[in-house]
């Protein structure tokens, strides 16, 4: 009897697979790709606990416990790069959110032909590589010739050597990042807004609501789920930085490390210039774990407030 049941269950499970086989095969290339390039490297995380040697490989290298982490956390680097990464990302998230929402709401108020023109302009920087943006930044910041230098002297201010004064860089990087990425976020919010059923607005119009009231009472509340999904995703990335921005815009100038060095640039340098594989793996693991905790935590908090908005 029992054997019969399990045999039956076995066939149904196989039967289920048979029924879904074609769809499964469609997804197979992507599944295998993720397995090799995303799941296999997770095994490599044990490097963080090893004294890694290229010739011995991941499994042959000797264990050294938490030494890699200890080495990193006792240095001032740990605090500096963590602080930079988090503060920049908070700045990016808040500023981009506000600007993109405002622009999306404004776009919704103009005719569709005008939208196309503005959209093209807003989106253009998004499609430039960080190397090219680095060149553009240079044309503003270069000593003596740069546009900012001209502006500074025009107003009779003392010229600034931008690539050597670290205290100005939080503003510069925030501005550059906003310029490059705001178009993308704007478009996502705009797509969300035009997905809102026009009947809400018609009803509000009959009740005599003006434009600002409609924006506050209809557009923003209905966009909240989208805003929150994007917010959770960006909070998850709060421990990750856009390498290109922090590498090419400050031109890898070591004068600026105190305010431009982030976890990603630090790991890159530790791996490529210093060659400390074990420690860079440890920093990478620290980055991934904290990032993961942040996503789970923010999803949990949002679930507490309003479960409809949570990511899962």
């Amino acid at each position, binding site marked *: 009897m029992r054997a019969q049941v399990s045999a039956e269950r076995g066939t149904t499970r196989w039967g289920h697979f048979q029924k879904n086989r074609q769809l499964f095969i469609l997804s197979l290339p992507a599944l295998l790709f993720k397995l090799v390039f995303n799941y296999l490297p997770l095994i490599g995380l044990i490097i963080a606990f090893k004294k890694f040697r290229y010739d011995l490989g991941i499994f042959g290298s000797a264990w050294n416990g938490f030494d890699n982490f200890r080495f990193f956390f006792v240095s001032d680097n740990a605090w500096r790069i963590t602080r930079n990464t988090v503060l920049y990302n908070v700045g990016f998230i808040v500023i981009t959110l506000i600007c993109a929402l405002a622009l999306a709401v404004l776009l919704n108020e103009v005719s569709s032909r005008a939208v196309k023109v503005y959209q093209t302009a807003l989106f253009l920087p998004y499609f430039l590589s960080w190397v090219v943006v680095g060149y553009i930044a240079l044309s503003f910041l270069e000593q003596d010739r740069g546009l900012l230098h*001209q502006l500074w002297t025009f107003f009779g201010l003392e010229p600034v050597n931008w690539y050597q004064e670290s205290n100005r860089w939080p503003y510069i990087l925030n501005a550059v990042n906003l310029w490059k990425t705001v178009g993308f976020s704007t478009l996502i919010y705009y797509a969300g807004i035009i997905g809102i059923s026009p009947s809400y607005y018609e009803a509000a119009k009959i009740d005599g609501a003006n434009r600002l009231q409609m924006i506050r009472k209809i557009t923003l509340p209905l966009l909240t789920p989208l805003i929150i*999904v994007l917010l959770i995703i960006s909070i998850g990335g709060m421990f990750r930085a856009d390498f290109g921005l922090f590498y090419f815009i400050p031109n890898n100038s070591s004068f600026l490390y105190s305010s431009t060095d982030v976890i990603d640039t630090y790991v890159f340098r530790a791996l490529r210039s210093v060659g400390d594989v074990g420690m860079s793996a440890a920093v990478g693991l620290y980055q991934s774990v904290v990032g993961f905790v942040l996503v789970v935590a923010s999803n949990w908090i949002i679930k507490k407030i309003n479960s409809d908005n949570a990511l899962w």
Partner: protein
Amino acid sequence: MRTEKGSIFRVVTHSILGLVAVAMILPLVLVVAVSFSDENTVIRNGYQFIPSEFSLKGYQVVFQNPTMLLNAYGVTICITLIGTVISLMFTAMIAYVMSRKDYRYRRATTFYVVFTMLFNGGLVPFYILIVKYLHLKDTMWVLFIPYLLNPFYVLIMKGFLDRLPTEIIESAKMDGAGEYRTFFRIVLPLSTPALATVGLFISFVYWNDWWLGLLFVNQENLVSLQLMLYRTMNSIEFYAANAQYLSGNVDISQFPSITTRMALAVLGAGPMMFVFPFFQKYFVKGLTMGSLKE
């Protein structure tokens, strides 16, 4: 009274959007303007939006020895074409499967893909995997394989496919079409806006990539456009800063380093800037993140 209020609102809206649009484009105009300027006037007057003296010298220098540039274009065009086609296929296939409400392993598949967005091994295991275990360093493969599937684009694609009416798929099945036929003959043709949007995003990722080259390429004939731009930016600075060490046959005072640099930037960014406006009409239709949430 009402219309007047409305028109004031419209004027304000347009002026804000207009100002933002101008701010977006001006930095690009500056680079193009400098690339067409005369080197000496740039040194004298600084960067200007309108060249006080027009010159093509920057471009001349680049085209005098075009092998490097042409090779870089070749590499970049090649990986962009191959990478985009394969990546778009992978993305569409798994996104479609995830969008099918009757697919038994839908939730598991979605989790499997989204989890990689939240947690990953970081740079070091990835680097060692590619170099030591897959032996892809200094090969053409390494320039496109690692980007073949981006979960973010899968979600955008899925968001679009979610809204295709299920009746279409059901009726295809009634007519006796298998899953493959349904997908390739019916679903894909209906998804043109999403395919165009996601395809364009993917192609920009490939066109603009310097990261994989920076990590895995030393060989000269595999240097892509952006990597070449990066290397040139550094070597021009090197020559400018160390002019006194150069031997007599190179006249550094005649070398238009600034305008050459900007000309290269224009040549690196240019082609994609021309492609991109043609895809505009698909963007909003293709980019529906509203149903991203499960």
